[in-house]
């Protein structure tokens, strides 16, 4: 592995972990606040137990998210100094606002965690709401910085220099809204299904059923709604990419030949050497329609782009298939959940709970696949059509060792966080409520 690939792997690896921690830290406060609100309303001790248990989860994930985020803020520079020296000032605005939002989140969480029986009840609940809102805000701001790499704007690139910088325009780049919407919904889907799945498993195992049923109810509703909205946001994203990054669209569809009325490929095995896709299912004219809203629109194929400007096709295509496939599964599961609200009998079946338990990792798998599509699909560029990733990497050799260090560190972190969560649940099942 050369230096560039090692740096890429390290970035990918740390992001893959950070995204999980960050999403949970972003969404779980909402569950916690709802449960807290129900406790204040009903005085049912189940909700107090649940709130306190979720709050520990929030604290643990907030800190792992915060430290892995601190690491990332350094890594951007450590790994891609040539990128940061130019891009830093341009996309500084979302980053500085994100710093502020994150700071507010930390302060609000301090109030919340330590405010039990000390702060006025409503104010205490309110600080919990602030945790959630500022968490989502910082997520959106960071995604805006990422979307700028896909849709660079707010500067003029003249003779290798970045001139006439307009940070506000860079912040509100053409891709920020579609990307931020898609990611926020994805965070809710992934976290909700994961949390609901964990509680469904406990119900399946017949442990402290009343508590876990309430927990499931609170968690799933967010995910179910978000999963139904996600296809709409996905459609917006696809149309946006078709306009701005046709090469990415071609790669994620593994579409080699430019044609009018282009078919949509589902599945298939990509041969990048020959530029063919075998064993795929074809839906005629669907790609043209989905990308441009016109069955006969022309979709550019990969062969129209010079080889050195194409992203790795196979990875992007497979990741895209995984994301869409799993997203669709979750959408149907959401429908299933809403039907089960009418047909109460379903919820008495253990199979129902097993089904939702098995779904718990699916949202996160879809989310990671989606990020692989965005990031790998942007290659070979770090700033689309402006700077190549290979020109941004640090001159320091030996990045592979740094990569190994992060692999070891994050694997240990993941194991310990999982272990801690398992212990939380065990204790939760032994409380009398």
């Amino acid at each position, binding site marked *: 592995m050369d230096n560039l690939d090692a740096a890429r792997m390290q970035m990918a690896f740390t992001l893959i972990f950070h995204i999980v921690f960050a999403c949970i830290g972003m969404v779980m406060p909402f569950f916690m606040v709802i449960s807290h609100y129900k406790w204040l309303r009903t005085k049912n001790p189940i909700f107090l137990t649940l709130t306190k248990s979720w709050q*520990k989860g929030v*604290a*643990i994930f*907030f*800190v*792992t998210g*915060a*430290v*892995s*985020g*601190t*690491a990332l*803020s*350094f*890594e*951007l*520079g*450590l790994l891609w*100094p040539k990128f*940061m*020296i*130019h891009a*830093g*000032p*341009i996309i*500084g*605005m979302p*980053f*500085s*606002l994100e*710093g*502020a939002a*994150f*700071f*507010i989140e*930390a*302060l609000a969480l*301090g*109030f919340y*965690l*330590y405010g039990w029986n*000390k702060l006025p009840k409503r104010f205490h609940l309110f600080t919990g709401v602030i945790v959630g809102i500022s968490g989502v805000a910082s997520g959106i701001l960071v995604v805006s910085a990422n979307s700028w790499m896909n849709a660079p704007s707010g500067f003029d690139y003249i003779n290798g220099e970045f001139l*006439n*910088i*307009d*940070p506000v325009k860079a912040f509100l780049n053409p891709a920020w809204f579609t990307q931020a919407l898609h990611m926020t919904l994805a965070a809710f889907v992934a976290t909700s299904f994961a949390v609901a799945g964990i509680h469904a498993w406990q119900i399946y195992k017949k442990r402290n059923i009343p508590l876990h049923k309430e927990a499931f109810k609170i968690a799933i509703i967010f995910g179910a709604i978000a999963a139904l909205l996600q296809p709409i946001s996905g459609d917006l994203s696809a149309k946006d990419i078709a306009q701005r990054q046709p090469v990415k669209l071609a790669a994620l569809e593994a579409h080699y030949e430019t044609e009018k009325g282009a078919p949509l490929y589902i599945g298939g095995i990509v041969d990048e050497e020959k530029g063919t896709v075998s064993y795929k299912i074809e839906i005629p004219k669907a790609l043209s329609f989905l990308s441009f809203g016109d069955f006969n629109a022309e979709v550019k194929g990969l062969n129209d782009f010079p080889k050195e400007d194409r992203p790795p096709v196979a990875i992007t295509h497979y990741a895209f298939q995984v994301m869409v496939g799993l997203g669709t599964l979750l959408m149907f599961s959401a429908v299933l959940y809403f039907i089960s609200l009418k047909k109460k009998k379903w919820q008495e079946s253990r199979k129902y709970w097993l089904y939702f338990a098995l779904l718990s990792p699916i949202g996160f798998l879809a989310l990671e696949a989606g990020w692989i599509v965005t990031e790998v699909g942007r290659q070979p560029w770090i700033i689309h059509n402006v700077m190549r990733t290979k020109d941004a990497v*640090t*001159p*320091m*050799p*030996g990045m592979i060792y*740094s990569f190994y*260090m992060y692999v070891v*560190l994050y694997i240990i*972190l993941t194991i*310990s966080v999982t272990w*801690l969560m398992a*212990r*939380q649940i*065990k204790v939760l099942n032994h409380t009398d409520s």
Partner: protein
Amino acid sequence: MLYVVLFFTVFSFFLYVLLGGADFGAGILELFSSADHKKSIKKTVYSVMGPVWEANHIWIIILIVILWIAFPAFYNVIIIYLHIPLTLVLLGITLRGVAFVFRHYDAVKDRSQLLYDRMFEFSCLVTPIFLGMSFGTLISGNIIIPENPAEANFADVYIHPWLQPFPILAGCFFSALCVFLSATFLIGEAKEYEKRMYMRKAGIATFVVVILGFITLATGYLEDNKFINDLLKNYYAIGAVTLSGILLYPLWRSIRAGRTIWCRFLAGSQVLLVLWAAVGTHFPNLIITKTGPVSLLDGMAPDSVIQVLGISLIIGGLLILPGLFHLLKSFKMIKILEDEKN
């Protein structure tokens, strides 16, 4: 607006040193304490720093973000040539943060607590050493910026500059400074019978800080370090360092008299005076390489960026600082009320 940005740069740097430093110091105090004291320190630290523990460490993120937005060329030198020590700092920050939260939020309190404690204490010791080393390297004049990075010798460029007596001493000095801050900050929070313990520790820490500070300066002087030489020639800097030394006497008096707020104020100002002396003498040429100084203002971001950043910082500051103040204050109030009840 440049002044607003510079103000926030210096402000977040100072706050990180004071608050983050005191956090690190608490862990080091724990490390160098007997088993009985460990427990009580752990408890005190948790009650004092618990609510703000994460906030203290966000200052470094703010600092880094300001640097890369407003002073990208300056930041580039730091981030390329201090890659290894900074990676080790990150490792330490990560382990420290998770150990702190694990030991308080693990649902089961069993022997794994011992592991968290060791992890917390050890990373609290190591992280400020590498932070201090990084700062020491920047001002040491050891950094080599090769003309052709591809042909540069790895060890010469990426290892030797920071693995030298002066940066290592600077790291140890910063660690000791953290303990000094932490011990003086904690005296006010401690129960009566523990106060003596903290006083003794504060005394030892002060002694170590003064000795290490002297050795670090002497090493810099003997190595003919430009930064130190200039510092020793600058009357303001000497004045600041001397004043910081003189303040030890009132500090000692207020520790004896149990004047908490004064203790903190004095300890904080002493550290700030030393930092001010270090940063002030050479501003804006804060990095000194083998071939010459690198100015903070070299290759600065264009005006449009500085404007927007300044406004963002003002807005952020207006939102954050009252919250932070309120957080510190309300928990302080609660603590006082509880103490009265007991």
